[in-house]
């Protein structure tokens, strides 16, 4: 397809530009994060708690859970296989492992974070996670269809298992815009009918 090539060139240019911008923005954010969140630096295992942990109430390290401990995504994001929504784990899921007398976290930073989770649990409060991955409201993304088609979570969400605090993958991975969705749909011969996603 001619457009693919054209857009590929355009995308490459945009990527170069965006890459620079992103680096710049990241640097700024890092400074912000330091100002807001005194706690996490790098854990003893070398896992980064994330350079923008500041926006999340808890610096949840996906890398430790998904990579180091090989926990399946769907263990916590429990409804991805049967619902349009993947589901954000309830606090009880965290407590299932990190509750008193259960898995002990080694690092000091980690212990601090777990203590915060326990505080939410004891106060019967929900953790106000900040949404990172979001399609526009006029787009319907049924998770179950994509899981059912054999897609890996990382194909859209990026290498989450390498991340500390969740962040969007850079635009080289995918910008989350419509062209990106379409490219994948075309490649996989999935429907390009508009009302598959927009209604």
């Amino acid at each position, binding site marked *: 397809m001619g457009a693919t090539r054209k857009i590929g060139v355009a995308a490459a240019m945009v990527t170069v530009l965006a890459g620079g911008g992103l680096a710049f923005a990241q640097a700024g954010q890092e400074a912000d994060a330091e100002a807001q969140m005194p706690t996490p630096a790098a854990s003893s295992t070398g896992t980064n708690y994330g350079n923008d942990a500041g926006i999340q109430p808890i610096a949840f390290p996906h890398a430790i859970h998904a990579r180091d401990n090989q926990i399946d995504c769907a263990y916590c994001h429990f*409804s991805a296989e049967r619902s349009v*929504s*993947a589901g954000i784990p*309830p606090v009880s899921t965290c407590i299932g492992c990190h509750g008193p007398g259960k898995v002990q976290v080694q690092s000091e930073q980690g212990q601090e974070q777990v203590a915060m989770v326990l505080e939410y649990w004891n106060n019967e409060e929900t953790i*106000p996670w900040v949404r990172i991955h979001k399609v526009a409201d*006029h787009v319907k993304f049924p998770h179950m269809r994509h899981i059912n088609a054999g897609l890996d979570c990382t194909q859209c969400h990026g290498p989450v298992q390498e991340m500390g605090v969740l962040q969007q993958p850079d635009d080289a991975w995918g910008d*989350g815009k419509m062209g990106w969705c379409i490219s994948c749909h075309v490649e996989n011969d999935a429907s390009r*009918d508009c009302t598959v996603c*927009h*209604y």
Partner: protein
Amino acid sequence: MSADMSSGIKRRDFLKVVGVGGAGAALTGCSTESAEKLLPYVVPPEDITPGVATWYTSTCGDCTAGCGIWVRTREGRAVKVEGNPNHPVSEGALCQRGHASLQHLYSPDRFTGPMQRVNGELQPISWDEAEVLLAQQIQGAAGNVLFIGGSMGPTMADLVDQFLASVGGSRVEWDGLAEAPLREATRIAFGSDVVPHYDFESADFIVSFGADFIETWISPVAYQRGFARATGVDAEGNKGEFVYVGPRLNLTGQNADEWVPIPAGGEAAIALGMASVIAGRNGNAGPYAQILQAYSPEAAAEATGLEAATIRELADRFQNSPSLAVGPGVAGQHRNATAANLAIHILNSVAGNVGTRVRLVENAQSAASRPYGEVEAAIRSMASGGVGVVMVHGTNPAHGLPPAAGFDEAFAGVPFKVSFASEPDETAAMADLILPDRHFLEAWGDASPRPGVYSLQQPAMEAVPHFDSKQTGDVLLSVAARAGSPVGPATTYDHLRNRWQALHQSVGAAEDFDAWWRGALKEGVVNVPVPATEEPAALRQPDAALIFDQPAFDGDGEFVLMVYPSSRFGDGRHANSAWMQELPDPVSKIAWHGWVEIHPAAAERLGVEKGDVVSVTSPHGSVDLPVFTYPGIRDDTVAIQMGMGRENSGRYANGNGVNAMTLLPAEAEQPSGGLVHLATRVSVVPTGDVYRLATIEGSDDQSKRGIAPAAYIGSLGQSEEEGYAEEGGYEKKPLEEMQMLGGFGAVQVDGKAKDWPLPGTDRGDYADPETPRWAMAIDLDKCTGCSACIVACQSENNVAFVGEDQLRMGRDLAWIRLERYYETVDASHAGTLDVRHLPMLCQHCNNAPCEPVCPVVAAYHTPDGLNGQVYNRCVGTRYCANNCPYKVRVYNWYSYADVPEPLNWQYNPDVTIRNTGIMEKCSFCVQRIREVQNKAVVEGRAIADGEVVPACQQSCPAEAIVFGNIRDTSSRVAELVENERTYRVLDKLINTQPAVHYLKKVTFHEAEDGTH
């Protein structure tokens, strides 16, 4: 520019309470910048999966019909109400008021918490303080407590009675739709003090003496379904007949095959005249034989101005088929209403319908039927200072009673006045203490709508957090305890369980109570078998003096005034609902404002036209209203709808129309004690003002276009060619001639709709036979025009309301427009009647004129045959709407979806909310199609026929709508498309090839097909 639209949906506030996911999908840009919070549960409820709807059964509390409902909740919010398919009353359907109950649940006008009136101003107080205060007042009142309630479920009524027994007081019931004369007549005739239950389905000949069983009468959903099954033409071409006898055609009357326009109050004479003919043959009149001799058809003819032969002929037909007579309902409650009801009972009895189609088992219908007489006594008691504390719950007598009743003055004089209203109303405006009740979707309760049906009402969601409400039952129990006279259970829930434990024992269920209870909650209803037929009750000697003659009317005006219940507001209780206000009245097609119905001939006499404001004056009051000229009313009668003219209600109700009750005397009919509604004459004087009515009606004339043609019953089953020739009038027209010249592609217009090739298949488009082809069939012989589908659609598809000013400009957003055309309606002669109702929705044309004109392909055809509308691609040129011959595309002239919090909680998260400048229209509920498809794919199976049900079909009480895959030859819709009555609107003229097929209405007379 579009980012502001999401501000109407405050996800965060909501998610704090219940969970995760979108509380509504707004059409925002692709920004991920906003720091949106995801708030998971602390502990997830077992039955909630994010993104998947959870359904709860309950019972609709909006009227006394007791329809079983399913409440669809998403992440803990109730977003839609549907009929419970397993419930014998609703059988899956629901009326427009039931759908709109969500508008009251999320009404922004609800009281935010308990309030006390201090120096005339309402001040918030805590529940504790409020209960203590009430307890003190009750102790001080020394047993002089008055509880004015609406019609309540059995458990609630029992709880209130226990409370009053404990603290010392009495209860009266006021319901503006009370059928007291019917109940009294039933007692007199058969000795059963009940409102009977009517079985329409098994009748072949139905006579209504004014009963509006499609809009409001007793149990409209069940009766409408029964009616549609009885009178819809079946596969063998059999069709039940329906004759309407009365001075004004309500929606029920518009669905009649024949209209006998008798003067107001003449129904007893006709019923007795018919009964006398039948009794003269079979001698079934029992103790009424003498009376029937006096009321011969000739006498009835003389009294009503009809021909005696007409009455005899009606009697013949009534006797010769399984028949049913009903009426006259609230609108017909005149000074001899008990007698009129008794006359109809006599007619049913002599024709042998009692015990079969008229059922008199104890507690036959839960319909409100307490007499106004009791309220009258309570008012006297309040006025005389005999009441220390008055509590008002579930009713609004300050608006619903005629001013002459003196309720306001008497109520104001009571030392301590409590209102349990959850939304402001005229009675609460006078109360000292307001203890807002829960909405029924947040509360426990039950109903027993008819023999053997026990229906549970359970909270479908946590109480809406904006409002600090408490279920009145709980308040009463708590207050009783604080007042030192506790009643047994601690909560309403306990009380309900206790009572149901007794039911559990009486039905002799095999399981233990807890299991049975859980099952009942899951099903929503417990059915106890009752005998299919009962021993026909014999007519008893009347124990009251009754006059069957025409009643007296006050005053000497030119017109008799009918005050009839509204199919949108009931007696006014549903008025503060933008959905109900915006829904065009099924008869007048007017929204928001009130009107007075006048026959065109009378209007000509008065020199007024539609929209001219007239002053309607009775001896009891006077109101100014714009005229709606209506050929379906006698020219000596005018009619005004109840339920409007609210002054102290919420923002949507206040100031719309006038309160018709102000024209009525405060008089109890004897012997039933029911409030008279049809009791006064009025004079009508033009004021010279003009009011621009908000109406969706352009023209009531089909203008020779054959939009809603009809088929004569005698022509059914004849050759197909003939059947087709009758339709339209466009056959063998230029289109085909041009095709013969080779000017068009292989589009075939002749023959059956289903044989027409799908456009594009010859070119290889839509080639995959596995891809479904969605289509719809609407049986106009069943459709009654009740408009429930419109509100169901509004609820499902986040269709916004626009308000009166916008609607007046023609900017209503409803995706379904119920068109109403007159073919033959003429009050000057009795006989054939032909009103056509046609739900007009997007026809999903295969050759859609709207699609090619869109410059950005926002309108296009999906592979599964839908006319897709991609909101986010729409630029708003409105070209598609111009080019839509059906005018079903509606446009967001403003951001109508920005509604006051928490009305936005109702939004369906599966449907994008449309911003300003976007065209929208019926999507065939594509979100439901996709949901089923997603499910089927994940489960690795095909979609079954009937699995995809759009909201309109789901809601339709008349079962007129069928949706499905037309490519699947065994599907119901494919079968219906084969029907000889099937046609497609305007298709022959403009070759649009719609996916919506209509089945012609069937008439008993040679029908005007609307094309000449």
